[in-house]
């Protein structure tokens, strides 16, 4: 029941924006879940498999989701034609999307380096991969705040 009153021409950009956001959050949930299991397991094969899974979820799900979400968001903004300054909820959306992108790239880099470190050491744990876990969790919380701002549209 999104967006009760809006022209129908905004529907498709909104669909892309919401779909991208859902895929992005889904990718982050997968990555955080995998990283959580990598933290808990002792078997080197398990740690490596879950760390690799977290990295690939960020790269193949969360990152494309962010691109679709951001492109859809910009498209619908161009149709809505907000006059400056933007309303508060839109500012929250931009802040979480753009700052979140930088955090996503750093998380992706650390997760990838962590996987490489694990492969070279033949198991154990990777400090880089472990740093990526709280970052991905923070990112997930940031995007949930964005969902709140986008749906309730506070002034």
């Amino acid at each position, binding site marked *: *029941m*999104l*967006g*009760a*009153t809006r022209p*129908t021409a905004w*529907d498709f950009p*909104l*669909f892309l924006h*919401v*779909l991208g*956001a*859902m*895929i992005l*959050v*889904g*990718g982050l*949930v*997968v990555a955080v*879940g*995998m990283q959580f*299991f990598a933290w808990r397991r002792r078997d080197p*094969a*398990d740690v490596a*498999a*879950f760390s690799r*899974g977290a990295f*690939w*979820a960020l790269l193949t*799900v969360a990152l494309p989701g962010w691109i679709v979400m951001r492109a859809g968001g910009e498209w619908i903004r161009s149709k809505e034609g907000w006059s400056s300054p933007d309303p508060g909820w839109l500012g929250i959306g931009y802040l979480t999307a753009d700052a979140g992108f930088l955090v996503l790239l750093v998380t992706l880099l650390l997760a990838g380096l962590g996987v490489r470190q694990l492969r070279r050491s033949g198991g154990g744990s990777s400090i880089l991969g472990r740093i990526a876990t709280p970052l991905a969790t923070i990112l997930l919380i940031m995007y*949930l705040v964005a*969902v*709140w701002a986008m*749906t*309730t549209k*506070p002034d």
Partner: protein
Amino acid sequence: MSLYDWLLFLHVLSAFTLVAAEVLFTFLIAALWKRDLPSDIARVSGISRLGNVLVGVGSVGVLILGIALAFEADSYAIWDPWIVAAIVLWLAFAELGRRTGKAYDAAGARARALVNEGRDEPNPELGALFRSRAGLGFHLASVAALVLLLLDMIFKPGA
């Protein structure tokens, strides 16, 4: 925040939870598609349980909060065509999800049994069970039902 705002936020949050579960299941199916080793498939049983929790919370939340929204908002009625369509799609999604779970749970149980028996070597029978056309078909159909639900929520046909 008004009651409507809270209901809408929690309804959308439930939808995000539901999609996160579907993303998780899709990711696991894709990641394990070429694997025949029982330990590879058994390993993900914990994380697939997380998916089951997410799909349960998300699907119940979406339905209950959606119905509450239909009664709370003056501009909607429960018999609006797009809301009826959403309820039908939700029922279809629930049944498809149940059948998908049945197919993949059988593969997971077989993998865990093989690991417990100490037979952790490539097993074509397990691979065939995991790659069953029925399981994949039900999963893809459940993803399609979810996308249709999102389209219905945004385009609101007949509103």
